[in-house]
């Protein structure tokens, strides 16, 4: 293994049919096998060739983590094109500057990114390129060497414009080899990828997963509930994250678990720990066994608690400039205060002043076109990390803090802000803190900046000072006036920006740009009523205090439905309703909504057999007597890509029987039928179990909670069931076809499954409108039309029209 391309090619050979990358953006899961992943990358390479990009040219990559991201990245590697990954939160002005500095020729982006700076660059939406996975694409291969550049990473700089860290294949592959035996990965492992892939930390973990043929799952968004859901649904085994995340999740766990449990657990073997915290494990899917923590220092206490759960915490230390891993805690991952031992192949020494110096193949090549800064980064061919640290006798590295933030006291002693913050953050009221050396009256003062609702800061400081050494005493303090400190992507405090604010009153850019975030309901209430969100609280009365009139009320329920996917009855908002009550209504709505769901028994293999038999011995013979069926267009069902959505017109209760009979058995056995919730699950609920047994019906609400119907449809399609969906929404009362429901087009576009239009004739004569029983015998004809495919970006309305037309012309 010399280049990252070797990994890609090895994967394609060894694991071709194994799942590699997965994401569920909305209703359907997208899963790429290793060979599809490879195909996508070759498709990107070909695209680059068509765009006349040469080896060494630069391409910007601006998208959230996804299969497409890795596909585009490896596609660039195949062509020797250099990737410049960007962060989603990068500001337009910044991107513009990077494009200029790297002379980028192309932008790969996510379709969701709509507001682009004026880049004057051609761009391609990578998430619209799904078709590339279909086959391997041929392109002219450029020889790729170890020393070739993989990417330029612009790390969030501390002063001035960030530097572009240039990493080569050799850098990354050397680091990957070094962690190979420390992070053991099985083919059966499932990784969750949530840190930005534009950071080399997530990259190296994902590459490690790929090299073992494991599966990488991406979360569609980064809210904690979505992450937990993704962990749970995919039974994730391993993930990388930052300490801040571990801290936040642990706080939630601690609210439910008594602290004594953690104490007891720390003495138990792993298997018992898992048993003790079974509920926690179950919420995460029950398989999580390793978390790699990096990017910032992990609080020892937090780390120990995670370990008490029976989950291994691997800590590492590194920089973007070192691709990134320099040290890791080796198994059994016990020494959590240390960042571990130096990885093989790399040398680390501590300079006289305590700075950590690194040498080895993992050390970056240069800062992009910046000789001066590149030179400054080294001292006699050793990389100056800017971090201060020391080794213990057994060779474990400990980090003291950043060199440039070290506070040199008047007495000539070195104080590390980290040590002070460690004590400050132990205080209950302190959410976060930042210690700096503040110049004051010609001296440097040890100054603590506190974040949080703190009643008596003096007392807090007094308590903390008692725990600190005499030379570390806090001499001054202030309360941070904003909601959050300026943070790097890995959630480290940007100390210099805090200091700049204290000394010059410069408000950090991040804080200026960050709009205070309110809970979604408050945001909605504020837009609808035009009341400042700061003035809305749980106790606010919606009608009285916010002046909600009847027009606003409609807007409010419409907005709640659109944004939160929950249907609220207008009548539920009375003169007395408080925001808190509405919150409760919304929270309880999913339970009300999901009153009807797909039963687990209906997809059971045994049920499938019974269903098949019942159809054979009961339904089809009966059908033969009542109405012989003529089938047309069966050629359209040959080589059917599974699964598909059948959309027949609806003229009689006999339709479902007729379509079922007309389908080839393979499609028939794997079919689920969308049925109106209000009819089958309410009005005729006594027959529902039988209908579900025979037809594999599932609830599809006709109004309001359509989203729920889409969720179920997506789940069934993901399980390879084709769907039968009547796009008219009900049996038509007259001969005239009803206009199709908008949901038909939405379904076709959202589900990304082919639609088969179906025409049915003759059923109406046998079982007329309003009737359940056959009036006479007669011939029925079922005609299948050619498959309709829709693109992700097609409008649902157009799709609806196209389906309507396709049924009509049959």
């Amino acid at each position, binding site marked *: 293994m010399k280049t990252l391309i070797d990994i890609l090619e090895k994967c394609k050979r060894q694991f071709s049919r194994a799942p590699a990358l997965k994401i569920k953006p909305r209703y359907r899961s997208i899963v790429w096998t290793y060979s599809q992943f490879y195909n996508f990358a070759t498709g990107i390479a070909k695209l680059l060739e068509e765009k006349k990009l040469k080896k060494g040219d630069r391409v910007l990559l601006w998208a959230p983590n996804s299969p497409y991201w890795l596909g585009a990245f490896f596609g660039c590697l195949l062509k020797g094109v250099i990737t410049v990954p960007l962060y989603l939160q990068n500001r337009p002005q910044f991107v513009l500057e990077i494009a200029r500095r790297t002379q980028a020729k192309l932008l790969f982006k996510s379709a969701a990114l709509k507001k682009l700076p004026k880049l004057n660059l051609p761009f391609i939406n990578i998430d619209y390129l799904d078709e590339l996975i279909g086959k391997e694409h041929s392109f002219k291969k450029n020889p790729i060497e170890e020393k070739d550049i993989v990417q330029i990473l612009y790390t969030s700089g501390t002063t001035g414009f960030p530097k572009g860290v240039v990493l080569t294949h050799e850098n990354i592959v050397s680091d990957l080899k070094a962690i190979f035996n420390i992070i053991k990965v099985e083919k059966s492992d499932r990784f969750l990828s949530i840190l930005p892939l534009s950071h080399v930390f997530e990259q190296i973990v994902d590459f490690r997963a790929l090299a073992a043929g494991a599966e990488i799952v991406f979360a569609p968004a980064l809210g904690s509930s979505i992450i937990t859901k993704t962990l749970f649904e995919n039974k994730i085994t391993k993930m990388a994250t930052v300490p801040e995340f571990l801290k936040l999740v642990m706080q939630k766990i601690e609210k439910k678990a008594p602290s004594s449990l953690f104490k007891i657990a720390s003495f138990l073997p792993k298997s018992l720990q898992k048993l003790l915290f079974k509920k926690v494990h179950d919420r995460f899917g029950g398989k999580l066994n390793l978390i790699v923590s990096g990017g910032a220092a992990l609080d020892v206490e937090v780390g120990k608690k995670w370990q008490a759960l029976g989950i291994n915490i691997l800590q590492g230390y590194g920089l973007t400039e070192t691709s990134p891993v320099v040290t890791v805690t080796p198994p059994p991952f016990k020494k959590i205060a240390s960042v571990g031992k130096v990885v093989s192949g790399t040398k680390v020494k501590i300079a006289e002043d305590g700075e950590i110096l690194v040498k080895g193949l993992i050390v970056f090549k240069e800062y992009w076109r910046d000789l001066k800064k590149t030179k400054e980064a080294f001292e006699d061919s050793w990389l100056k990390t800017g971090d201060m640290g020391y080794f213990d006798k057994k060779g474990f590295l400990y980090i003291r803090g950043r060199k440039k933030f070290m506070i040199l006291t008047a007495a000539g002693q070195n104080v590390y802000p980290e040590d002070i913050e460690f004590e400050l953050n132990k205080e209950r009221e302190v959410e976060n803190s930042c210690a700096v050396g503040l110049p004051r009256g010609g001296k440097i003062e040890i100054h603590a900046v506190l974040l949080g609702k703190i009643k008596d800061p003096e007392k807090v400081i007094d308590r903390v000072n008692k725990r600190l050494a005499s030379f570390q005493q806090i001499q001054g303090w202030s309360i941070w006036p904003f909601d959050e400190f300026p943070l790097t992507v890995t959630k480290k405090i940007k100390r210099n920006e805090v200091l700049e604010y204290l000394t010059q009153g410069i408000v950090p850019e991040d804080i200026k740009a960050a709009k205070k975030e309110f809970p979604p309901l408050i945001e909605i209430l504020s837009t609808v009523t035009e009341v400042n969100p700061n003035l809305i609280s749980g106790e606010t009365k919606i009608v009285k205090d916010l002046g909600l009139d*009847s*027009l*606003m*009320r*409609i*807007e409010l*329920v*419409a*907005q709640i*439905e*659109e944004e939160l996917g929950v249907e609220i*009855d*207008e*009548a539920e*908002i*009375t003169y007395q309703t408080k925001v808190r009550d509405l919150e409760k209504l919304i929270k309880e709505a999913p339970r009300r909504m999901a009153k009807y769901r797909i039963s687990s028994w209906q997809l059971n293999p045994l049920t499938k057999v019974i269903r098949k038999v019942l159809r054979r011995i009961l339904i089809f013979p009966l059908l033969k007597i009542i109405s012989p069926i003529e089938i047309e267009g069966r050629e359209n069902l040959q080589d059917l890509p599974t699964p598909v959505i059948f959309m027949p017109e609806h003229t009689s209760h006999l339709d479902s029987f007729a379509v079922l009979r007309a389908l080839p058995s393979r499609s028939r056995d794997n079919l689920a039928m969308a049925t109106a919730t209000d009819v089958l699950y309410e009005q005729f609920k006594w027959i529902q179990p039988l209908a579900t047994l025979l037809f594999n019906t599932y609830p599809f609400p006709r*109004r309001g909670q359509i989203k729920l119907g889409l969720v179920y449809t997506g789940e069934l399609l993901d399980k390879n069931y084709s769907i039968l969906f009547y796009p008219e929404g009900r049996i038509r009362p007259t001969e005239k076809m009803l206009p199709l429901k*908008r949901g038909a087009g939405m379904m076709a576009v959202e589900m990304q499954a082919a639609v088969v239009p179906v025409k049915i004739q003759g059923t109406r004569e046998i079982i007329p409108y309003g009737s359940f029983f056959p009036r006479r015998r007669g011939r029925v004809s079922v005609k299948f039309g050619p498959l309709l495919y829709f693109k992700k970006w097609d409008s649902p309305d157009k799709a609806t029209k196209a389906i309507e037309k396709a049924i009509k012309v049959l």
Partner: protein
Amino acid sequence: MDIKIGSDILQLKKFRTAFKKHPQKFERDVFCKLELENPEITHLAGLFAAKEAVIKALDLGAGKWKFIEIQNIKSGKPILKFNGIPQIENIKSYDLSISHHGDYVIAVVAILLEE
């Protein structure tokens, strides 16, 4: 004699914005099919105000839009139809008036109930 009166005033601009933002919601939950045959915003705003006036007069509570249907007779005079509200079977007589001026629509209704 039990007379109930109700009135409502509505700014066209606000109605238009709300309608354009959530047309489906209005088409589904506020207006009846026949009412939508004339899709002009000024017309619909008038109906909306009238419905609100009736809701106020009879104290029907929120969200009862589709229980009240408004049609115009030849002269343009609006008439009321009630779709299945039990508590208003005792309506003896009513009169409804809708008026537009500039950016505003106003509706007034008087309803006479049997004792």
